[in-house]
């Protein structure tokens, strides 16, 4: 589904990603872990098309298309979704109006008819139940004055509404207590199936207790330095990131 080859990216002249290779197949859940500053969020941003990042080398193939060649909205149309680490507040735009516009724009991109009011409402009711989201939240301005937990739940709710083929969760657990993590993870699990895939970007192992990954990759200094199964996450939790550093002798990396 997604094939990242030798991806290099930088921001403000500073190299952040230094050759990422990663293949994700339909039905899989991958986790990317790593210390702060290792490039986790940069990878998520580059995949979603944030323009501040410049790709200097490499390629990303998504369902047979050159992902890097597409605008952010086209990436969404193709089925990519990024759950933001810090969802943006948009005053004056109601959450419902926003989601309705997004759903219908994505449908339009895929050559499908726009949902009518009844169809949209039905879809929304169904997904609201999954995410424990209240109608009152959806009539408020998008993310404005939402608590951290509400923002993250709203991200996964959007994911449920847009039904992406491939979702990136960028530190969705950050700032959440364990109950909120459980709700968010539960939502993600209900959306998993054999045709879609998820990339979980996280600093901590605890989210992976609830969204169990098939593969875990450790990102360090802009590269994936170790890959394994879910046990790797437990090992990291126990031993800290230092053992990766010593094991790989990457502290001396020459820039």
């Amino acid at each position, binding site marked *: 589904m997604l094939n990242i080859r030798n991806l290099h990216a930088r921001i403000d002249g500073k190299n952040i990603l230094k050759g990422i290779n990663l293949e994700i197949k339909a039905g899989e859940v991958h986790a990317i872990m790593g210390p702060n500053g290792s490039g986790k969020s940069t990878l998520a941003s580059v995949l979603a098309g944030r323009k501040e990042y410049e790709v200097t080398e490499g390629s990303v193939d998504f369902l047979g298309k050159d992902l890097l060649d597409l605008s952010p*909205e086209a990436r*969404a149309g193709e089925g990519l979704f990024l759950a933001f680490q810090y969802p943006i507040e948009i*005053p004056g*735009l109601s959450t419902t109006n926003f989601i309705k516009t997004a759903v219908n*724009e994505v449908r339009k991109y895929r050559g499908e008819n726009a949902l009518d009011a009844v169809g949209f409402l039905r879809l929304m009711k169904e997904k609201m139940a999954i995410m424990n989201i209240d109608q009152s939240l959806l009539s408020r301005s998008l993310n404005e004055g939402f608590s951290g937990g509400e923002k993250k739940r709203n991200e996964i709710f959007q994911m449920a509404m847009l039904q992406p083929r491939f979702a990136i969760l960028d530190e969705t657990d950050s700032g959440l207590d364990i109950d909120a993590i459980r709700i968010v993870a539960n939502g993600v699990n209900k959306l998993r199936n054999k045709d879609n895939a998820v990339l979980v970007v996280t600093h901590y192992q605890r989210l992976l207790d609830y969204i169990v990954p098939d593969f875990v990759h450790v990102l360090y200094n802009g590269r994936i330095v170790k890959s394994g199964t879910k046990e790797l996450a437990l090992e990291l939790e126990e031993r800290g990131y230092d053992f990766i550093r010593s094991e790989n002798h990457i502290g001396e990396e020459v820039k």
Partner: protein
Amino acid sequence: MNTKEYFKEQFEQSNVQDRNNLLDVVRRQAFDTFSKLGIPGAKHEEWKYTRISGLFNKEYSFGVNLTQDPLTQADIDAIRLPGHESANELIFINGRFSAQLSIVRSSQLIVLPLEEAARGEYRQLVEKHLGHSSKYQKDGINALNTAFVQAGIFICVEKGQVPDHPVFIYNVADAKAVNVLSQPRTLVCIGEAAQVQIVETFSTLGSQESFTNQVMEIIVEKDAFVEYYKIQNDKANAHQVSTTHIRQIGKSHTHAVTISLNGGMVRNNLNVVLEAAHCEAHLYGLYFQQGSGHIDNHTVVDNVEPNCLSFELYKGIMDDASTGVFNGKIFVQPQAQKTNAYQSNKNVLLSREASVNTKPQLEIFADDVKCSHGCTVGQLDEEGLFYLRSRGIPEKRAWSLLLQGFTMDILEKIKSPAIRTYVDGLIAERLEFRSHGQQEID
């Protein structure tokens, strides 16, 4: 002929002589003021950024029935507001009230020619309140309107009355053949515990230039409630100075929303004078200017008596090479203790050539008050744009949503659903035709 001489000739022709006629006396005084002050130039502190004197280098037709073919209902149909079928419609053509075209549907609403009101049972009200705005607009342009008051109107809602329909006022300039100067004048008295909703628009017919110099003075008595909406969406060669002066002489409530979406050089003066304790005033404004248009909002909230509350929020979007001015004065007089006065002005610049000058001005002479003010000039958030696009919303549509979101907290202050939908539609239409998003400004 220069401007002053021109108006002198016009004034003399209109034969304002009768010392027993209240309007003649007021007019003559105002003309003397105009003769002294003239059209305000850039040296006038209140007109530093809004230079209207240049507009008077052109010739305008002014005064009596200049049009060969009088306008008909069909002409007015093109500019009617939604909901007009159940509204009182008052129509000014080139500054003169047209009783023929106007329709008063509410029995609770009294509409009289100003001349008649000044002679009859409302004489005292007219004498007391007509021209009060000149205390705040100390300039020749305000005096010019008063000097030529004729065919203005007096609107009255008597004690306890609530008209069953809103009052729509159309200020129409018939500029089909020539440039036109219009000077509509209205005095409104809202009696004790009465309530009214006024919606005002400005429209120029034809392709010649128009300059509208309008003054409306509104007197609000105890326990009365006034909603006032001004909607400006005229042509790029339609200029105006539009003064709305609200005197709350009893404990009362006003709610004013000023929407300026177009026009050439547009200057709005909104004065709210809180002359009784426990008055409440809400002032909202939204301006979205384009091309080389200019929009200037000057507001005054004068707290004369204690315990008043005023809340003011103006928001602006400046596109292309448009220029904007916001000047918000709050006065708190020595006896006006416990005043609560809040003011905020927020601007978004969409292009490198657009600019806005914003200036809060607080003059506080009491010591136990709560006042705040703030202003911002900036760009829309790129992060917000990316967020919307990452959900599949194309860039142009995302811009529109962000800008509409920016306008929302003003639009929701329009209490009439029909008018709110109308204004929202005008903004959506404008956004639809914008080709670009936002230029990066260094």
